[in-house]
């Protein structure tokens, strides 16, 4: 509302905002848009670097796409990806919010608590995943030791079990990312108008009402941002899968980006990997744009 009102004053064409965004646009165009265009272009070609006669690209229309969507393996990968996203995104966002509330309070040693929750983000994913690899070790891995103390009697072989492999990479992702989302919520919490809370408290609202009716709505833009990056992160993180399960057993933990790596660098299938790239970008783009538009509509 207010955006429209105040910017109504500057109705005449103004080149200035374009200039402000120009630096970003140039770098994005050079190092992102150009590769995307190349990917779109190459996705219509048959090109496999490891087959001599297919090294030179030949146009095949939408064949790469139709192949993908008729390939049961690819559909399995899509399914895994959906499960992975559902398994990681909501929980890590919730934990990020929850952690932010916990360490936003006055607290002795607050910095250390914040560090404790944030530090997984600082670890390189390869190192983090390797540490977790040890945690998942059957027999004496700390994961199982801890769970056994809690009365767990299920299977101990996490990364080799088709039913648990994806769950184990999800656990690592949640552990790694929750603290990351926490800092954006923390940043958001800092600029909430204090007077609103005071008047709400005077009106006798309890903490739960304040949280749901005031805090959370006021953090809406932060949440939109975090939802977007969490969703994108879920698609773009793959190192822990290389370390923990190499996509197995039997592809049970192969997600879209892992598949893309295999097609691009192991199978050297340029055309097919470009098609996967386009699908990958499209999914993220649709989600981000929808998320953004819905959020802006509420204004």
């Amino acid at each position, binding site marked *: 509302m207010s955006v429209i009102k105040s910017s109504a004053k500057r109705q005449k064409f103004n080149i200035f905002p374009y200039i402000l965004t120009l630096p970003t646009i140039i770098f994005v165009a050079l190092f992102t848009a150009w590769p995307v265009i190349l990917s779109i272009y190459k996705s219509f070609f048959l090109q496999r*670097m*490891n087959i001599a006669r297919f090294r030179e690209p030949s146009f095949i229309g939408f064949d790469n796409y139709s192949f993908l969507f008729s390939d049961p393996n690819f559909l399995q990968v899509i399914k895994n990806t959906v499960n992975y996203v559902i398994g990681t995104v909501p929980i890590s966002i919730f934990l990020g919010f929850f952690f932010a509330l916990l360490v936003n309070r006055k607290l002795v040693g607050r910095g250390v608590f914040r560090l404790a929750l944030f530090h997984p983000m600082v670890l390189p994913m390869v190192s983090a995943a390797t540490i977790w690899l040890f945690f*998942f070790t059957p027999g004496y891995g700390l994961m199982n030791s801890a769970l056994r103390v809690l009365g767990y009697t299920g299977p101990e072989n996490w990364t*080799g*079990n088709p039913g648990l492999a994806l769950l184990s990479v999800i656990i690592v992702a949640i552990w790694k990312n929750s603290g990351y989302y926490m800092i954006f919520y923390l940043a958001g919490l800092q600029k909430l108008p204090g007077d609103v809370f005071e008047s709400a408290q005077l009106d006798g609202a309890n903490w739960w009402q304040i949280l749901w009716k005031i805090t959370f709505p006021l953090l809406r833009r932060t949440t939109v941002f975090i939802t977007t990056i969490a969703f994108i992160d879920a698609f773009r993180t793959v190192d822990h899968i290389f370390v923990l399960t*190499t996509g*197995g057993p*039997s592809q049970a933990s192969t997600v879209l980006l892992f598949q893309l790596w295999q097609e691009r660098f*192991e199978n050297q299938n340029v055309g097919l990997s470009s098609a996967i790239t386009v699908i990958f970008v499209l999914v993220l783009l649709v989600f981000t744009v929808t998320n953004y538009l819905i959020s802006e509509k509420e204004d």
Partner: protein
Amino acid sequence: MSTFKKYLIVIMLFAMLSACGPAATPEPVQNEPAPLEQKPTDKPAAPVEEVAPTDVPVVEEPAMDPVTIQVYYPVAVDAPIAAILNGYIADFQTAYPYITVEPVFSGGYADVQTAIQTTIEGGGTPPALTVLLATSLYDLINADYIAPMDQYVAAMPNGQAYLDDFLPAFMANSYYDDQLWSIPFQRSAVVMYYNMDKFEAAGLQPPTSWASWADAAKALTTTEGTTTNWGLKFSSDWPYWLFQPLAIGSGQNIFVDDCTMAFNDPDVVEAVQFYIDLSKVYGAMPEGVQASWATDTADFSSGSVAMIAHTTGSLTGILNQAQFNFGIMPYPGKADGTFASVPGGGNFYIMKGAPQEQQDAAWKFIEFITSPELAADYSINTGYIASRFSAFDTPAMQEYTDEVPQALQARDALQYAEAELAIQNLGQVRSIFHNYIQKAFNGEMSAQDAMDAAQAEAETALVPFCQ
């Protein structure tokens, strides 16, 4: 307000200044004298090295233009590979003052390959020499990345003798279309480590067949309270490699040639079933797919597990940790008295995209670094198996193997080895194989069904390659 402006300017200035890193080299590899902190190449001839190669003619070739080559190499063991290579290169440059060698560490094997692919596809010049998996052969040939080496061997005074001196198992993935494409460098093999003390205590002999292997594994599996000390650990998170000797010992390797797989050969299926039986029937190892590559060695050297299937590359680590006597042997085969193993590790490849004089220089370096003395030295310092027979005759190696007899046992296992899985369309076919063998290991499919499905899918995947 003016502070903001200042701040901005400072930021931008800083950005520009600090961004000017080391001197920009316009191309990845260039045919110029080495830039920057390269070791001077004109240092006076050093006194004769201890490890001066014997079968490389240290003849100054007159009036050679200076040439710089790069070697992209991976690190897959925890040895100081960079320092070792730098030592060899210093010696090399004494022998060949006109050649400068720049070693470039490039991650793991997969990272090296990614870097090479990116460089070539991005229009750059690849390094003249790389160390990549021996099994990458067909992908590299098909992509037209590598150059054959026959001409160089032909030009050697004793070329055939040079090749014949390499352990045959290590040369198994070097030829295609009657041409030579790679030379073994950092090689290993799949073997079985066994705890001799445990065997002795139980009155057991090292196994000589599947039956005696399984029996020993069963006998050595003990339970204390809730913990089980397994007789055997055999990881299967990246299963084809450790599995191959089972198939070979059963009578049929998992592939016949680059276009023919034998996944559902009765012998291979039997080997899959044997792996399953080791847990299901004998109870001698944990059930299902074991993602335990990194922990198996610890379990063995802590004395918890009596036998492990692993790479000879782990010998150094186990030697460092184990407080007991242990031996290395090939896997026992199905029939009594038969054994099996499979090689692994990386070879040298000469990249076709590098200028000819760099390729020639790269060969000189290969010849130098595969000399028996350096092959022995590299083996002693890294734990890889020396790639040549004559390396084992060097004094340094003999001294070493007197102390570490397992190094000889590792070499001897290789006489039972067949080729590691190196085929057309390797990545995809290997994924198919992994996919189904893990289904069999996890009990999702029977061994026969899984291997039938793997064979069918692999054949389809090979059609565009093998028509």
